[in-house]
């Protein structure tokens, strides 16, 4: 069986399980030790082409940094021959130590071009205090990101790698990174200004044409016609009556009338308003009566209404406001003034991009089709089955907790309703930076969410499990969750092969 494993598999096998153990002091979830079935899952199923990713993501930023600084990494020490026995995985394993060591050095010699070799280190009992490590990696991440973004030609893959480890708050880094990851900003720095201007102009035009109410439209027409009309108003006497064309009066019931089309959307506008009032009620950015929150809700309303009008097949579905909220928030907290003025335009374009591949989930009559929500939910179910058959069996067959009951909201709303706001932003960093697309990572995170509360689920019945999954625990360690998600084998078709 060992011949089936490539080298990269072995390397991966070495490092990734150690990480949850090594960071056991950081999280309090009971699911700290990787269950045997998790490893079993990894053993069976080769991951897709990840040969380039030598180290799992926690080290990724450091490795990338080394790359850029022109250092050489000698990885030959870690290639295990096929058939060689894997080393037992211990807490405080090699990876952790190495990182802390070299992390220190990196912080000290930031611009140093010293050649660094990743050394083998004996396993120690004590490890570096976690907070120091975290600070170091934050700084590392920030400088990596800034470095990458400031390049003339941005390497999207590298950016994806850095971003999936989490983008530090502040400084508009997240906003720029998300715009790049979503393809709103081109990877070539020089084209940014031109592209932004074009897009923003396009949005302004769309807004003017589509969101205009009929009376503004009519007065626009008047102004474009000759100014003879105004002569009437200077003379006293009976006011002149003008014919109406095309049933264009406010009470018209005809379909072609501008007015009736406008009134058709009043229901949608009301729905949007109601949903926006309920968006993140704990955040003063969105809710409350301050002028800031009103302005934000107004802008979001414009975006959602424009989307609804441009897509009459889907229109507005409850929940789209939740998907828009993180995007709008991140872009408005960008300290760059130019960006802050054009939040609406940028948010609209990125909202459309994010919704692009999951829009079928919102369409009710596509529910049963191969791109609809039910198909995606069954893919999640398959994913769970492949990665942890015991849990799957317990959920689906024994306690009959079908994924439709909990995963619907997870999937359609891209997890925006399951976690605290900062957590959502962190999760979205990983979601948006997945090279295989948002949906792929989304399903993996959903699966990881199930795996992380596995013990509670196994000991619960239908009611308890459903309650747990519909109110996912707040105290979960996000980094751990995302790490588990990344390690989940995504391709279920291999399952049949390796058996």
């Amino acid at each position, binding site marked *: 069986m060992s011949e089936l494993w490539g080298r990269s598999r072995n390397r991966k096998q070495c490092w990734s399980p150690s990480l949850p153990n090594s960071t056991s002091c950081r999280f309090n979830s009971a699911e700290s030790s990787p269950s045997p079935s998790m490893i079993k899952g990894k053993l069976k199923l080769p991951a897709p082409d990840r040969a380039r990713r030598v180290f799992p993501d926690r080290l990724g930023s450091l490795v990338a940094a080394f790359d850029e600084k022109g250092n050489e990494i000698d990885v030959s020490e870690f290639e295990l021959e096929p058939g060689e026995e894997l080393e037992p995985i211990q807490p405080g394993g090699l990876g952790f130590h190495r990182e802390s060591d070299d992390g220190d050095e990196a912080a000290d010699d930031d611009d140093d071009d010293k050649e660094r070799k990743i050394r083998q280190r004996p396993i120690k009992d004590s490890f570096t205090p976690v907070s120091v490590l975290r600070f170091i990696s934050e700084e590392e991440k920030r400088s990596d990101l800034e470095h990458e973004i400031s390049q003339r030609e941005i390497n999207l893959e590298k950016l994806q790698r850095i971003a999936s480890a989490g983008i530090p708050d502040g400084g508009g880094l997240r906003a720029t990174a998300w715009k790049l990851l979503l393809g709103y900003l081109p990877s070539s720095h020089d084209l940014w200004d031109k592209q932004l201007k074009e897009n923003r102009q396009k949005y302004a035009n769309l807004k003017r044409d589509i969101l205009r109410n009929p*009376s503004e439209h009519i007065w626009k027409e008047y102004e474009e016609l000759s100014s003879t009309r105004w002569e009437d108003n200077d003379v006293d006497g009976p006011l*002149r009556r003008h014919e109406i064309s095309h049933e264009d009066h406010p009470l018209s019931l005809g379909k072609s009338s501008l007015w009736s089309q406008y009134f058709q959307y009043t229901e949608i506008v009301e729905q949007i308003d109601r949903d926006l009032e309920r968006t993140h009620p704990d955040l003063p950015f969105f809710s409350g009566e301050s002028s800031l929150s009103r302005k934000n809700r107004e802008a979001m309303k414009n975006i959602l209404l424009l989307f609804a009008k441009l897509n009459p097949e889907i229109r507005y579905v409850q929940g789209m406001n939740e998907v828009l909220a993180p995007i709008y928030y991140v872009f408005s907290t960008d300290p760059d003034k130019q960006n802050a003025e054009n939040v609406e335009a940028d948010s609209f374009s990125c909202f459309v991009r994010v919704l692009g591949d999951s829009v079928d989930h919102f369409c009710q009559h596509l529910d049963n089709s191969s791109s609809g929500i039910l198909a995606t939910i069954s893919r999640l179910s398959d994913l769970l089955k492949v990665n942890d058959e015991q849990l799957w069996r317990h959920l689906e067959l024994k306690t009959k907790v079908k994924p439709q009951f909990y995963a619907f909201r997870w999937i359609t709303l891209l997890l925006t309703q399951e976690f605290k706001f900062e957590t959502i932003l962190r999760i979205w960093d990983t979601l948006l930076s997945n090279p295989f697309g948002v949906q792929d990572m989304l399903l993996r995170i959903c699966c990881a969410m199930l795996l992380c509360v596995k013990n509670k689920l196994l000991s619960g019945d239908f009611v308890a499990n459903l309650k747990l999954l519909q109110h996912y625990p707040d105290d979960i360690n996000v980094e751990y969750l995302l790490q588990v998600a990344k390690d989940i084998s995504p391709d279920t078709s291999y399952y049949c092969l390796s058996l």
Partner: protein
Amino acid sequence: MVLVLALGDLHIPHRAPDLPAKFKSMLVPGKIQHIICTGNLCIKEIHDYLKTLCPDLHITRGEYDEETKYPETKTLTIGQFKLGLCHGHQVIPWGDLDSLAMLQRQLDVDILVTGHTHQFTAYKHEGGVVINPGSATGAYSSITYDVNPSFVLMDIDGLRVVVYVYELIDGEVKVDKIDFKKTTTSHSAH
């Protein structure tokens, strides 16, 4: 964009049983923000019906109204315009432009809406506009012959107003529009 419906002189049930069906089909709730009614409804049921079209309802008392508590005149501000409302039987000669202009100056409004003559008129007079929406049911009047059912819908948008006149002529609804702008100098304080 504020839609204001102006109508009056329905004289239900004494002179007419109900609004014309074609008018009723057009008047649906949710579109109109204000209703101003010149008076002579005459019964509470019509008041309730108008209330379902729009919760913001203003009525002045006509001589045949059964509700005695409506005011004689009313003024309200919508957008940049001040609107005045009065039934019109108090202003004699009935329908005389100069006398109505006196009332307009008294109330200090830009647009004065009165009724009683059951005849649609719209005049610009001395800086203000006087509108008579006519009778929405086409009820009989002793001063006007051949009354056509009519009402008025005003679209107030900032400093501009578009007045849509709905008339039922020979069983067909005819809609015309009148537009005017408020000139800022027209109402200096005196």
